[in-house]
């Protein structure tokens, strides 16, 4: 099986950015037509001139000079930061949008899964949505009929199959949506981040199904931020950065490169980070680790009382209300280890001054030695105010977590858990 499934040569996609990207009021065209009648009206029939002015610098290449070849049966992970061009690539390969330049050759029937549940209608029942969604994904009616029971069983919604999906729990909804897509018969699967949704059990099930698909000898192109999933499923990975292929090879190596690249961004002070989301009603300026006396420390030890300090500013001079903060701690594969959150532990900030410092204390840090990274997240009045992924990294060094005078062995998991032992006899006396 060394036949080529996908071959891309010099693929590029240019988008126009800026305020005019989405709407072009008809009056603009008409007004333009008064000055230059033909040029203005030609926008109506000439799609490129409507959206793109190549000479202006309001354009951005979402994808540039992308070339690679994927053999039949290969399972390839596509990784890269937000905006690296991964989704644009899948959109071009699944024919949703056209490339601006270059060619792509695809041998085999393509099933693309850029989103699960596309076209689901809340008023329709589970049964009706299976047919509708199947047809949208390109399945024939006969194919859907044949797979119907399998889909329902996979989604575990037998009892509710004739209930409108608007009454489904979000878990059921996602399961049904994924089930339809997973049963699409195709030679090539293009999958985008579908595993980022749903609960852990569902994600595990999806990953299992993806693994099966890969074993059947189908070609899979899999975009994900979930590095663990990529390592588990794909032998090969392609790293994208700013629309270009940065690295292409064995997934372990490529993932390593990616993780290094992520760390580099964490050198940047939080205040200067641009890769953040939210309305910035409150924004993080710096992050620091402190010991229990409040003194900044460069590194921490297992078992130490640690304070994570987040210095922030806001865009008003008045105190803020209804502020919630969360910190996600991630391990070396960018997998979430735990989550520290005011909305979960029930804490409410009484007064939030317009500028200040948020402190989160972790008594007896239960982490094994290693390198960890943080995501910081904050909402004000229910809206996301600031959200930075990989906001910072910190090193944990071996420490006497158990207070036993001994250092725990390295490479024994991620966490240390306080525990005690006891012994009793089971001999009959």
């Amino acid at each position: 099986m060394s036949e080529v499934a996908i071959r891309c040569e010099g693929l590029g996609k240019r988008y126009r950015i800026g305020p005019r990207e989405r709407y072009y009021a008809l009056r603009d065209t008409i007004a333009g037509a008064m000055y230059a009648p033909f040029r203005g009206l030609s926008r109506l029939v000439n799609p490129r001139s409507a959206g793109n002015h190549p000479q202006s610098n309001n354009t951005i290449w979402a994808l540039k000079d992308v070339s690679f070849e994927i053999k039949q049966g290969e399972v390839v992970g596509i990784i890269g930061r937000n905006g690296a061009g991964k989704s644009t690539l899948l959109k071009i390969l699944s024919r949703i949008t056209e490339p601006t330049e270059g060619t792509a050759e695809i041998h085999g029937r393509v099933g693309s899964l850029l989103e699960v549940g596309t076209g689901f209608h809340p008023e329709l029942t589970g049964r009706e949505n299976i047919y509708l969604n199947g047809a949208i994904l390109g399945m024939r009616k006969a194919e859907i009929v044949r797979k119907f029971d399998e889909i329902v069983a996979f989604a575990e919604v037998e009892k509710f199959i004739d209930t409108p999906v608007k009454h489904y729990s979000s878990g059921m909804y996602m399961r049904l949506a994924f089930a339809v897509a997973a049963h699409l018969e195709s030679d090539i699967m293009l999958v985008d981040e579908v595993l980022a949704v749903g609960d852990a059990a569902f994600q595990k099930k999806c990953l299992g199904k993806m693994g099966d698909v890969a074993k059947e000898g189908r070609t899979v192109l899999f975009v994900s931020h979930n590095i663990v999933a990529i390592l588990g499923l794909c032998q090969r990975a392609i790293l994208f950065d700013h629309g270009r292929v940065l690295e292409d090879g064995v997934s372990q190596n490529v993932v390593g490169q990616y993780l290094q690249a992520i760390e580099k961004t964490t050198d940047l002070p939080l205040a200067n980070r641009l890769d953040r989301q939210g309305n910035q009603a409150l924004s993080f300026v710096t992050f620091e680790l402190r010991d229990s006396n409040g003194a900044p420390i460069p590194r921490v030890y297992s078992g130490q009382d640690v304070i994570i300090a987040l210095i922030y500013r806001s865009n008003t001079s008045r105190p803020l209300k209804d502020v919630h903060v969360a910190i996600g701690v991630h391990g070396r594969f960018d997998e979430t280890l735990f989550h520290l959150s005011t909305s979960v532990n029930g804490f409410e900030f009484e007064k939030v001054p317009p500028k200040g410092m948020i402190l989160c204390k972790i008594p007896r840090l239960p982490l094994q030695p290693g390198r960890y990274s943080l995501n910081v997240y904050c909402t004000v009045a229910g809206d996301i105010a600031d959200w930075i992924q990989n906001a910072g990294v910190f090193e944990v060094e071996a420490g006497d977590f158990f207070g036993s005078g001994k250092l725990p062995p390295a490479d024994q998991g991620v966490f240390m858990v306080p525990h005690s032992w006891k012994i009793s006899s089971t001999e009959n006396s």
Partner: protein
Amino acid sequence: MTTAIKESSARKADPERTLVQTHEREPGRGRPTLLIRPSRGWAALDLADLWHYRELIYFLTWRDIKVRYKQTVLGGAWAILQPFLTMVVFSVFFGRLAGIPSDGLPYPIFAYCALLPWQLFAHALTESSNSLVANERLITKVYFPRLVVPISAVLAGLLDFLVAFVVLIGMMMYYHIRPTAAVWTVPLFLLLAVGAALGVGLWLSALNVQYRDVRYTIPFLTQFWLFLTPVAYPSTLVPVSWRALYGLNPMAGVVEGFRWALLGKTEGPGALLAVSVAITIVMLVGGLYYFRRMEKTFADVV
């Protein structure tokens, strides 16, 4: 619009300006081969691809029908109430108070018979024009020939028409109107109405993706168009010398055709109908090509 078309085909030589996606299926092999590249010039209609996706047209039409009257108390009765109540209003104000002639037919059935194709047309036009924007999720996440969307939006209106048609049959019995052999031409006029709605709908839906002004224009458009169509009045009010020109409104041909085919009193719509058919074909073919040309940017712009 014709100027614009000429203008841009003159530019075809400029490769930067034109792109169309070509996809070729290799015949005779198990695995189809697809070539994706920037396209040039005006795209072919590729009706084969559309035919390949015929089941999707069916399912989207079926969805629109299923969902339309969900969570309404009266449900499908709306399909009857809309033309029927309009007919009552027209009969009172135009028929009774204004005394508008009705070609010797009872005014209520004169108006109702015209309202059926009119409402089919107006509804199909509105729905198809908004269809691409309404189905934005589909367009940005899945590939299929985009023509599927406005086509199924138009087709979904046919069921309402059929339901309301039953009332017309009842009214014909009430007024003792026996249809002549001309009744067999009704499907053709229906086809003309659907074709006209699709022709305009294709232009407007593609424009709506880029210019949301279209959405706000449509209610006015349908209102003006109603006055330009002999629904509340007979086309005999239009001077004979202008009659053929009047056919430039394809709905004039459709409405007069319906009255002729079903109620039989009026004379066959000769020249007027010919003009209507011709203009419908021009609009439809033009709309198809325009739509195909704009199609490639839908996912980026919508």
